[in-house]
């Protein structure tokens, strides 16, 4: 079954949330006693309506937000005990708006973290070429271009390449393909599956699109009311009777026909 396609060699826990609650300043409760364990090498697709705290989950993992109550563990260690800089350099992050730096060429964008890590220049260059090839962009053509010279899909590929630059064990993706047109989105999903089959990261991918969750995730988590309403393989999710989950499943055919 689908869920075993990228199954890890061992069932080690890479990311763990234990009874985590989070309230944004002057805002509603985003997470309310949220618990979750993600095994190494798994791809978790996290779905939920807008404002259900999906992005909050990602930002708690890489410490862009501080833990308020409960514990978030990355590789067995509470994020509050990690040096946030070291932690973030072990976690690739792909944003919805891509967040490529407009003043840097594609090559320099991809090379940021290796350079921050102080890699020798020759190794940086080799890695940039390798990564651009991995995401299907010819380094000779694209390395010296600026982000504004690329299409949305190409920029998204660069965003993935940049996040993978120092081969981090964990990859976070926040609505990675949300800004793309349906055809490009489908193509990017296939690309992602191809890349993931090569790199085997622990991935947490946030989306509000059930179709995307099913095609990307080895596990699907449904967020509702600040809690995890369901957490299972895609096939198990489809059979679920949970009302929150059903809402998403009901939306499924409509979106899929809309896409293809």
């Amino acid at each position, binding site marked *: 079954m689908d869920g075993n396609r990228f199954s890890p060699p061992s069932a080690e826990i890479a990311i763990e949330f234990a009874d985590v609650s989070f309230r944004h300043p002057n805002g509603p409760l985003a997470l309310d006693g949220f618990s979750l364990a993600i095994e190494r090498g798994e791809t978790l697709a996290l779905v939920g309506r807008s404002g259900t705290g999906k992005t909050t989950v990602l930002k708690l993992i*890489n410490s*862009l937000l501080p833990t308020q109550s409960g514990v978030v563990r990355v590789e067995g260690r509470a994020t509050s005990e990690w040096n*946030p*800089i*070291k*932690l*973030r*350099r072990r*976690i690739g*992050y792909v*944003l919805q*708006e*891509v*967040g*490529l*730096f*407009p*003043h840097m060429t594609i090559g320099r964008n991809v090379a*940021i*973290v290796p350079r*921050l890590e102080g890699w020798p220049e020759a190794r940086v260059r080799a890695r940039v070429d390798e990564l651009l090839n991995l995401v299907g962009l010819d380094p000779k053509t694209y390395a*010296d271009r*600026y*982000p*504004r010279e690329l299409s949305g899909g190409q920029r998204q590929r660069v965003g993935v390449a*940049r996040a993978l630059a120092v081969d981090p064990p964990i990859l*976070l993706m926040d609505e990675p393909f949300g800004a793309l047109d349906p055809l490009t989105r489908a193509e990017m999903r296939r690309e992602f599956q191809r890349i993931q089959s090569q790199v085997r990261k622990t991935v947490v991918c946030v989306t509000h699109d059930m179709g995307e969750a099913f095609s990307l995730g080895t596990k699907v988590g449904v967020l509702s009311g600040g809690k995890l309403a369901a957490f299972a393989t895609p096939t198990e999710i489809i059979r679920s009777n949970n009302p929150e989950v059903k809402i998403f499943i009901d939306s499924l055919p409509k979106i899929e026909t809309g896409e293809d």
Partner: protein
Amino acid sequence: MRLIEFWLNNSWEFLDAIFRHLALVAASTGIAVAAGVPLGVVSYRNPRVGAPLVGLANVVQTIPSLAMFGFLIPMPLIGGIGAKAAVIALILYALLPVIRTTTSGLKSIDPSAREAGLAMGMTGRELLYQVELPLARTAILAGVRVATVVGVGTATIAAAIGAGGLGEYIFRGVASVDSVMILAGAIPAAALALVADLTLTWLEHWFAPDRGKGGKLRVGAVATAAAAALLLVIGGLIWSERSGGRLVIGSKDFTEQVILGELLAQTIERSTKINVQRKFNLGDTLVCETAMQAGDLDLYVEYTGTALTAIFKQPVMLDSAEVNRRVDAGYAATGRVMLPPLGFNNTYVILTRGDEARRLGLKTISDAAKYSPDWRAGFGSAFLDREDGYRGLVQAYGLKFRGTPLAMNLSLTYLALAEKQVDLISGDATNGLIAKLDLYPLEDDRRYFPPYHAVPVIRSETLKRHPELRAVLGRLAGKISDQEMRRMNYEADVERRDARSVVTAFLDRHPEINQR
């Protein structure tokens, strides 16, 4: 054509003025950028510090530039006269645009770029240097451009405190009602502002964050070159300002004062080996007085009546001997020495147009009182303020005017009278324009105006260092009659000769002054 002739005839002086002007602007803008960008970063990162900082810079920006230079003269360390005080004032003006555009440039960066930087594990410093500052570059350069253009304009006023530059032509031109000389300073100043604006606009475009190939290397190179040039310019300014062992001679900002300053300078140069530095066109009496108190000025020519009332705040007095005695005592008590009077008495005269005086048969101020209710009057602002000026005059003669008298620059009043903008002004008895513009001095028949004898004033310390100056400058005593002074003023104002050659001619007419 006369303008081009003027530049050609004074090409070295002109180039020097341009260089000094550029140096003042470059030094002040450079320092303001070096200080303003970090302050802008601080105020962006920490709004609690930033708000008061921008507020303060805002307040500084609203201070009129002449007033700013005035404030700085008596300040210890940062103030005084010359390039240093001018650069300080220009820095203060340049800071606001730099701080504000740095802060707003940083604030306007797309938050997703910042978030991406943080998520990639950049430290605050890495984020600042690799993401935030490069993305705010265009905005910061726009601030630098505004600061530079404002600086080019404001630097013209720096001439008022002896910093030199193109403003000196403007001040001298206004003082001698010489439009060619005004343009000789104003046109290149405007051109410099335009060139600076265009160059920096081009740089902004060049350094736009997502502009084509390889802008990054150039930023470093340009910054390094700019820093090196800045050091060179500041070094040059300091070198040109060095006054070690120099005797600084000043003057106020009108023709006669420049001639008298030049006269003191050439007399000393001809008879001694003392190194003389000229700081002419220093604004009004109070600028010279504060500069002298601060030790920035060793020697200049003052008028007894002015010293008595404006400096020593004593009531107006008509008896010359008593005025001399009191002024002498006043200077002695404040560390200065009043040297013997030069001879002429540059008192106030009340002037009307020559044709008007002839038509109405006017001879005295009393005669004019009959017609004055139909006249508009214009006076220098000092005359309007002084006890022995406007208020006393209208009382003594029962003068009435149409409307309130206009307050204007003293030198402009002559032209305003000749051009029939006003019908009566106060002027200096020795002004060369009186004959040139066919103005008529009305006799002071009620003996209202006090004496204004010209006297060199020197700091006691300076005189102790150079005791020979007492004898050298003593030889000028009584040598300049009213006629001699009017002649020299006429040569400078009407014949457009520069002060140097006017004074040289005078000293050549009086060889006894230069005997060793």
